[in-house]
């Protein structure tokens, strides 16, 4: 969970408007390299959507328990038994880049790190 750099109060309101900077921050958190054009479009569209969904705040629900799931099943465990998993070759076949039977990724650490 990260803070969003806006001065908006922590309550859903129909006035929740997102600036271009807000959208840029959300996009960064969500790993989306959005374009300059998209910042304008999404700032507009996301503000409209947030204004509409803020309607949930009209409902008096202080003492209502939340529903996370329609089916009240908890702690579903399977027997602790080793079973076959997918073949390594079959799994790696779908990867964009493979090296030495492993997923190859671009460098993670920068030189200064």
């Amino acid at each position: 969970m990260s803070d969003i750099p806006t001065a908006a109060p922590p309550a859903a309101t129909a006035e929740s408007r997102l600036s271009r900077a807000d959208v840029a921050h959300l996009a960064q958190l969500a790993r989306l390299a959005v374009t300059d054009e998209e910042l304008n479009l999404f700032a507009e569209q996301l503000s409209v959507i947030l204004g509409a969904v803020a309607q949930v705040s009209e409902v008096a629900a202080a003492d209502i328990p939340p529903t996370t799931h329609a089916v009240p099943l908890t702690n579903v465990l399977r027997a602790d038994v080793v079973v076959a998993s997918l073949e390594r070759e079959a799994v790696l076949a779908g990867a964009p880049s493979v090296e030495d039977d492993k997923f190859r990724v671009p460098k993670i650490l920068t030189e200064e790190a």
Partner: protein
Amino acid sequence: MSLIRSSAAELAARIAAGDVTAVEVAQAHLDRIDAVDPSVKAFLHVDADGALSAAKAVDDTRAAGERLGALAGVPLAMKDVVVTKGLPTTAGSKILEGWRPPYDATITTRIKDAGIVMLGKTNMDEFAMGSSTENSAYHPTHNPWDLSRIPGGSSGGSSAAVAAFEAPLSIGTDTGGSIRQPAAVTGIVGHKPTYGAVSRYGLIAFSSSLDQAGPFGRTVLDTALLHEVIAGYDPCDSTSIPAPVAPVVEAARDGARGDLRGVRVGVVRELSGDGYQAGVLAAYDAAVAQLRGLGAEVVEVSCPHFTYALAAYYLIAPSECSSNLARFDAVRYGLRVGDDGQHSLEEVMSLTREVGFGPEVKRRIMIGTYALSAGYYDAYYGQAQKVRTLIAQDFAAAFEKADVLVSPTSPFVAFGIGERVADPMAMYINDLCTLPASLAGTPAISVPCGLSEGLPVGLQIMAPTLADERCYRVAAAYEAAVTPVLASIPELTV
């Protein structure tokens, strides 16, 4: 009746009787796809070789004197969000273009084991986010009733394929109405099972507390037959309900006798009126009168929190999607962009997701990211989950007074392709009637109930958790009493 216009039940009976082979049935549907799919564009991938060899296997089984399953040899179109081993599976997204899954979803396995012949994978809104199939990264699908209109969504390829006689059966998934609304606007039957009744193992996840796969057919009985094939407990899905499959086929046969005496039908006050097209309401009112004519007792019920279902859904589903779609990180499958030695892993992820996801997916990921952020979580996501509880309580109270609840399936008939794409809220409003059952996890069916301006209207029938058979019983009784809507579909000019 020609092979492509036969029901699944008729086809299975003819194949079992040796009147026609499964290979002939598969070939007739592949020919139909060749003829009409260039205009309808229901499929993303057609697997002619796979279909013919699966059909041949059914014919061989019969020749060996073995008993065939209830739908053996019947063709089916599979929504592209369901993984199929070795067959391209994209979920309508560019980020998965070219990916061939290394395993089958549980429902894929069940369909294959039943001898059902999979013709191919159908188009959909990207990651099932949409109500028109226009959010597919590949192409829109056209409604066979009027090619300039949408076939509903997100399972629009599956609904169009069945309405266009390209397949008698198909599989859809429904997170907020993605089976029921496409069924309604194409004049076919579609059922969203009780959440947990059908395994989610191998469904590419959108909103895990809501996603549910279900059947499409041209008749209530066909839909029920497919439901029985795919439903049932699956240890591979930790939210699968360990309960017997609802007796939906028996209910469909029983309902077809047309007697609804003793059944209490609740008309939901909040799901009609302002914002609904007049023609939709007229067809709906006539359907309710028809149910009364079949002996049902019609009562009005009020579910005051249904009004907030749209707002709650468009917080909960995006929140869950922002988490689920984090798996598309350019490492294990799908697209990778910017891997040129100049970009870090994080940059490659961001560039890949930017190119690989379409605008609606990005919008929902960002709304979800916002709603789950510190300082906003309680006001948005937490509050939406409380509203979800209140909606479930409204259902519980209404089911004290009625055995099933009814409403229109969608406030509108199929709209024109391109009409609503620029305005996300105008698209979301399509889901007004289908969202309450999604949030409560309860089953609901859409059955055709007449035409408005020459386009199909759907009647939604909702039942309590694990009482899916009630949906089928009432739908079958209604279906038996009226002229089939699909009888008036215009012939596709090809």
